[in-house]
C-alpha cells in the first residue's frame, strides 16, 4: 500500500466550558490513503465533527484547542501551523463540505463570483477563464443550465442545488482530500440520493481521498471503503465496510447496527436497543466509556481503558469483542 495521505496520531482536542475542560477527542489515531473514502460515524457529541474540523485547522479557538498529537498531511504536521500557512493548504489541498450549504455560501454574491474568487486566487486564472472553469465545474456536479445558474444568488437555488454548488467549490482546486461533514443530512431523501451518488462518482473522477463524517450508517454503507466508529471522543472500531456491517466487533457498533429499523425487516417487531445513554464528557468513567451500557462488560472494563487492537481485518477497542461466526 502507498504512503498515507493523512496520518493522525494521538490527537487530543479540548474545549474549555463553564463547567470545566472537556476532551471532545481523546487520543485518536488513523490514516487516510489516496483515493479512498473513509467514514467517520458516531452519534452527536462523539467528536466526529471536531475531528473533521481539526484537519483543516478550523477548530474554534477559543474555546477549543488541539491539546496534543499530530495531524500529518503528506508528511507535514498541520498542528501548530499559523493561519497563513493553513490558508495555503485549505481549499487547495484539503477542502471541506459542510452540512448546511448556506453556511458555506455568501448570500450577497452570485454563485459565479464566489467560485471565480477561489479559481483566480489559487489557480491564477483570468476573469474569463475562471468563469468558464466555474461553469464547467457546475456542469460536472450535475447542475442543469450551468451557464445560467452561475449568475444566480444562493437563495435562488434549492437545497440540493446549493449543496452541489458547495461541492463544485470544494472541487475547484483539485484537492487531494475532502472532508465532508454530513453532506447530505440536510437534504430530502430523493435529493440525498442524487447528491450522495454524485459525490461518490466525483471522488473517483477527481481521484481524491474523502473523509465522510456522518451519523447515518446507511450513507456509510453506500459511500465508504472503510469506516471508523467513534464513541465519546475515541475510535472504538476501525474496519473495512463489509466487515463492519457483517461482523461488527465492538458491542457499540453491533448495537448501533442492530437498532436501525431498516435492518429489521419484519414490521412492528420490538427494536433492539442500547440501554442508557452517552456519559457526560465532564464525568467520564475511568474504564471503558461504553461499559455502563454494555451487555458484554467484564470486571476489567470498569478500571482499564481498552486501546485499539487488531481483530481479524478490523481493529477494535474492547476487552470482550463480539464474535460473529463466518
Amino acid at each position, binding site marked *: 500500500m502507498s504512503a498515507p495521505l493523512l496520518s493522525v496520531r494521538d490527537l487530543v482536542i479540548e474545549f474549555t466550558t463553564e463547567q470545566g475542560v472537556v476532551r471532545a477527542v481523546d487520543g485518536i489515531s488513523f490514516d487516510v490513503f489516496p483515493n479512498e473514502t473513509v467514514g467517520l460515524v458516531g452519534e452527536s457529541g462523539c467528536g466526529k465533527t471536531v475531528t473533521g474540523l481539526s484537519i483543516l485547522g478550523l477548530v474554534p479557538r477559543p474555546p477549543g484547542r488541539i491539546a496534543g498529537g499530530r495531524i500529518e498531511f503528506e508528511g507535514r504536521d498541520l498542528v501548530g501551523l499559523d493561519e497563513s500557512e493553513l490558508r495555503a493548504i485549505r481549499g487547495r489541498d484539503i477542502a471541506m463540505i459542510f452540512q448546511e450549504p448556506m453556511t458555506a455560501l455568501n448570500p450577497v454574491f452570485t454563485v459565479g463570483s464566489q467560485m471565480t474568487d477561489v479559481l483566480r486566487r489559487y489557480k491564477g486564472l483570468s476573469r474569463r477563464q475562471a468563469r468558464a472553469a466555474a461553469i464547467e465545474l457546475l456542469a460536472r456536479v450535475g447542475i442543469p443550465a450551468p451557464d445560467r445558474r452561475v449568475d444566480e444568488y444562493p437563495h435562488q437555488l434549492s437545497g440540493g442545488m446549493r449543496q452541489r454548488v458547495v461541492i463544485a467549490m470544494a472541487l475547484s482546486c483539485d484537492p487531494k482530500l475532502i472532508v465532508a461533514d454530513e453532506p447530505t443530512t440536510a437534504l430530502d431523501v*430523493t435529493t440525498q*440520493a442524487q447528491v450522495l451518488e454524485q459525490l461518490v462518482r466525483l471522488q473517483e473522477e477527481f481521484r481524491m481521498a474523502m473523509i465522510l463524517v456522518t451519523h447515518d450508517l446507511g450513507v456509510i454503507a453506500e459511500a465508504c471503503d472503510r469506516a471508523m466508529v467513534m464513541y465519546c471522543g475515541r475510535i472504538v472500531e476501525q474496519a473495512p465496510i463489509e466487515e463492519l*456491517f457483517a461482523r461488527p466487533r465492538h458491542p457499540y457498533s453491533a448495537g448501533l447496527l442492530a437498532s436501525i429499523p431498516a435492518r429489521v425487516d419484519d414490521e412492528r417487531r420490538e427494536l433492539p436497543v442500547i440501554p442508557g445513554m452517552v456519559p457526560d464528557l465532564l464525568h467520564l468513567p475511568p474504564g471503558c466509556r461504553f461499559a455502563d451500557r454494555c451487555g458484554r462488560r467484564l470486571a476489567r472494563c470498569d478500571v482499564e481503558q481498552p486501546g485499539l487492537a487488531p481483530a481479524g481485518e478490523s481493529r477494535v477497542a474492547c476487552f470482550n469483542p463480539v464474535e460473529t461466526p463466518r
Partner: protein
Amino acid sequence: MSALLEVRDLRKHFPVRGGLLRRVVAQVKAVDGVSFTLEAGRTLGLVGESGCGKSTLGRAILRLQRPTGGQVLLEGRDLATLPPAELIAMRREMQIIFQDPFASLSPRRTVAQIIREPLDVHGIGTPEERARRVLELLDVVGMRAAVQDRYPHEFSGGQRQRIGIARALALNPKLIVADEPVSALDVSVRSQVLNLIAKLQRERGIAFLFISHDLSVVRHVSDQVGVMYLGKLVELAPTHELFTNPRHPYTEALLSAVPVPDPRRKAKRIVLAGDVPSPMNPPPGCPFHTRCPKALPYCSQAVPQPVDVGSPGRPHSVACHLYT
C-alpha cells in the same frame, strides 16, 4: 371496527401577500384535498419530503391551524361545527408530540409542571390527584419519580421526548399526532423512544398519526402508510403492502432512495430528476408529473383521483393515471 378519525377532502391553503397593498397574490396549497380514515388503536404513518404538507396536515386535523376546507370527524363528530365548549372537551381526546424536544418544553417549568399542565388547563382532579397522576405518567414513560422537580435543560433529547410523551398522555387521549417524534434523536436513543410509543399503543389502545420523513421508522411503527407529495396523498396502503408492492412512481422512487445500511445490497435506485416544485406554483395535472419517470402526456392535463388497486379487505389507494 369503527373509524376514530375521518378526514374528508381536507385543505389548508396559506395566502401569499405581495405588492404595495399586501394583497393576496397566490395561495400555498400546503394540504390540498386529503382524505383518509384512522381506526381506534391503529397507527397511520405519513411520509413525504420537506414541504409536502405532512406537518400542516397534522396540525389542521388538531385544529392548531384552521383548515381552509374539508372535514375532520373525530368519533363521527365534525370538529368544525362543534360549539366552542364541546370543541374544548374534544381536544382532550387528541394530543400532539412535537419533533424538537428542545423547543417544545418550557425551560422555566419543572417536569412535574409540564406534565401536569394539560390537567390544570382542563381542570381535572384535585391537586393531590394531579400530583399522583404525574408520578404515574413518569413511570409509564420509564422515568424515575425523582426527576419531577428538575428542569428540561437537565435532560438529554431522548429523555425530553419522554417528558413530551408523558404530557401528551396526561389526558388519556384516543389520538396522538406525533410529528417527527424521533427525528432529532440519535440512533441508539431513537429505538428506545420508538419501542415506548409501540408499547403505549399496544397497552393503551391509542391511535397514532405518525408523521416522519424517515421511511424505515414509519415502516416499523405503522399499520398503514400514506405518502404525501405537494399537499396531496398520492398513495395509502397497509404497511407491508406499501413497502413490498408500491404502486405510485413517487413511492417507488422514495423507497429506492433510502440509503441501505448493508454494503452487500447495492440499491437499484430510481434517481429522480430535478427538485420538488414550489407548492406556491404547483404544476398542472398530476403534481408529480414533472419528475415522474413514467409520466404520460395526459398526466400534465388532469389531476389523478385516488383509485383502489387493493384486494378485498386490503384497500390500497393510489392517485396516478397509470391505474385509471
